[in-house]
């Protein structure tokens, strides 16, 4: 490479990288994500179950718990992120799947449903993950 390229462009790229990387980490504390359960605002925390069911669905953002609820109940979850990202998760009582998301690749939608039967057979185990939004849905025992 030319001298100018070596002297200016490489530090420039590295500086851009350093400036961008912290910006990628969403600050969950400043502006929390909203969770709608069946259309109504959810204050946070876990939903109690009387069904005596062992499986629960845990939804996290950046590894921080948003909500967890029993697998065997039918609900529609809307996760609304402060930056405009949306994930719509459907619990039918028998399965959990990502119905829709406005991320760029829709891998989470393509991952299909987690059911009681395929929990051990899926490549991703009990996980449905939206990598661009850093939303993770996990089905596991308590």
């Amino acid at each position, binding site marked *: *490479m*030319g001298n100018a*390229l*070596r002297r200016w*462009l*490489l530090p420039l*790229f*590295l500086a*851009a*990288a350093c400036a*961008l*990387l912290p*910006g*990628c*980490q969403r600050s969950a504390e400043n502006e929390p994500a909203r969770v709608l359960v069946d259309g109504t605002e959810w204050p946070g925390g876990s939903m109690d179950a009387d069904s005596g069911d062992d499986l629960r669905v845990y939804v*996290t953002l*950046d*590894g921080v718990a948003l909500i967890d609820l029993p697998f065997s109940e039918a609900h529609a979850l809307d996760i609304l992120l402060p930056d405009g990202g949306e994930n719509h998760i459907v619990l039918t009582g028998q399965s959990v799947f990502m119905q829709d998301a406005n991320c*760029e*690749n829709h*891998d*989470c939608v*393509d*991952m*299909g449903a987690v059911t009681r039967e*395929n929990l*051990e*057979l*899926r*490549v*991703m*185990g009990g*996980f449905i*993950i939206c*990598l*661009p939004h*850093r939303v*993770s849905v*996990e089905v596991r025992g308590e």
Partner: protein
Amino acid sequence: MNSTARKVARFGLLASLSLVLGFLDRAIPLTWFLSGAVPGIKLGLANTVLLYAVYLMDWRGCVLLMLAKVFLSGFLFGSMSAILYSLSGGVLSLIVMLLVRKNAKVGALVIGLLALLSDLFLLSRNPAPRGQMLWCVLLIALASIAAFAAFVYIRKNPAFAVLGTSLAGAVAHNVGQILVASTVLRTPQLLYTYLPVLVGIGAVVGCLTGVVAQRVFRALRVETNQP
């Protein structure tokens, strides 16, 4: 011709080629493969450009090309998080490719062993795989065999060295991405559910792109055994 001008021209050519191939990568959906079981996999044709650079340029040029590819394609087609993941994959794969370019057969051998180990690990977690898992276990076994075959080929004929470097680079790319993804999501579970599968798929795809790159090198008459 001035050698600096030649280098700059070559750099620009490779950077634009990697952008075009990156777009092609996005256009070929591999996600339908295994019916969405393995999300976020792609062919990695853009990596063949980096492979070419590893054999033709010094390490500074390679780093610059990798950064150009990651940031330009990130700004053009992707988002911030896409840049983060492709940067982590790009850095690790470039380091590994620069390390193994002179002894590519060792790279192929290590990848073969790694694929074998991850296959055995999957089998130990799930002794009777069915459905998606069965296909993945078979695929990783195939990847392991392919990597060992690449090792034998390279030992016989050093002109196949690109194959080993490609294998190592593809697997390292996946490992880097998963490391960052599991850190960002704080789900270390990804490391033992998803990583073994991605090692296998990386080896298969790396083999394919390695063959492509080797053909291209031969057509361009690049000496790969003497970097």
